[in-house]
């Protein structure tokens, strides 16, 4: 009846949350990175989630109500970099300020906990489903 089975719905969320966690780890790892391929300091990245199954086809199948989740894209945080005065730094601008990534470790930690909890909730949903499947198997065991 639905294009997504219960396990697939939860699994899509696990994949999405893991991806989000990887981005957070990347942000944390690059908290002091002043050189990137694009030039300038590293910029904070964030995952944007979107429900799966919102396309025209699934809308016609009337199965769009049961949606998994996917990563729609990664956006770069456009907030200005942090400025630290350190004229001796090799990447310091002529004014003596070093541009450091626009990453706040507290924000990253909060997002990490949120992603972790969401992951756990979906694992619980999968385990619940498995238990239900086991109960259903017991019907035949008279």
């Amino acid at each position: 009846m639905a294009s997504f089975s219960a396990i697939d719905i939860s699994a899509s969320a696990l994949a999405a949350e893991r991806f989000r966690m990887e981005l957070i780890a990347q942000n944390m790892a690059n908290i002091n990175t002043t050189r990137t391929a694009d030039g300038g300091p590293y910029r904070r990245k964030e995952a944007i989630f979107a429900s799966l199954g919102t396309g025209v086809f699934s809308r016609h199948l009337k199965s769009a109500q049961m949606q998994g989740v996917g990563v729609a894209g990664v956006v770069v945080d456009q907030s200005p970099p942090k400025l630290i005065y350190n004229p001796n730094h090799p990447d310091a601008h002529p004014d003596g300020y070093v541009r450091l990534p626009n990453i706040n470790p507290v924000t990253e930690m909060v997002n990490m906990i949120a992603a972790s909890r969401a992951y756990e909730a979906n694992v619980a949903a999968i385990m619940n489903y498995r238990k239900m499947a086991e109960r259903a198997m017991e019907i035949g065991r008279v």
Partner: protein
Amino acid sequence: MQNAMFDATTLLLSRTLGYSLRRHKVIAANLANVETPNYKAKDLPFAAVLKSAVVRGRSDRTRAPHFQEPRLVLDVTGEVRFDGNNVNNENEMIKLTKNSGLFSTASQLIKYKFSSLSRAISSSRGA
């Protein structure tokens, strides 16, 4: 004549199992989209489903009835957050547990029904 194996009770219980599975999918989808902007929580309300199942279960004779698809509704109990999402994680976990309990109950009842049938069959054989 009443069919002992597939009477109204069995049909009702099997419909409850089907409903429970469908609701699990809805709850799993809500949990999956807990961080999706503008996603709105959905639910399959139990009372309406049970009522329609009971009414149908009574009117059945021999044919398997057409079970009306329970209607998905928007769950408006949660507060809409700044990202337009109103999924409440705790609420969904409670619904998940309750739904799993309903499934267990229905499947146990079906199991008892079949095992008592089996006992009835084997006892006549023993005599």
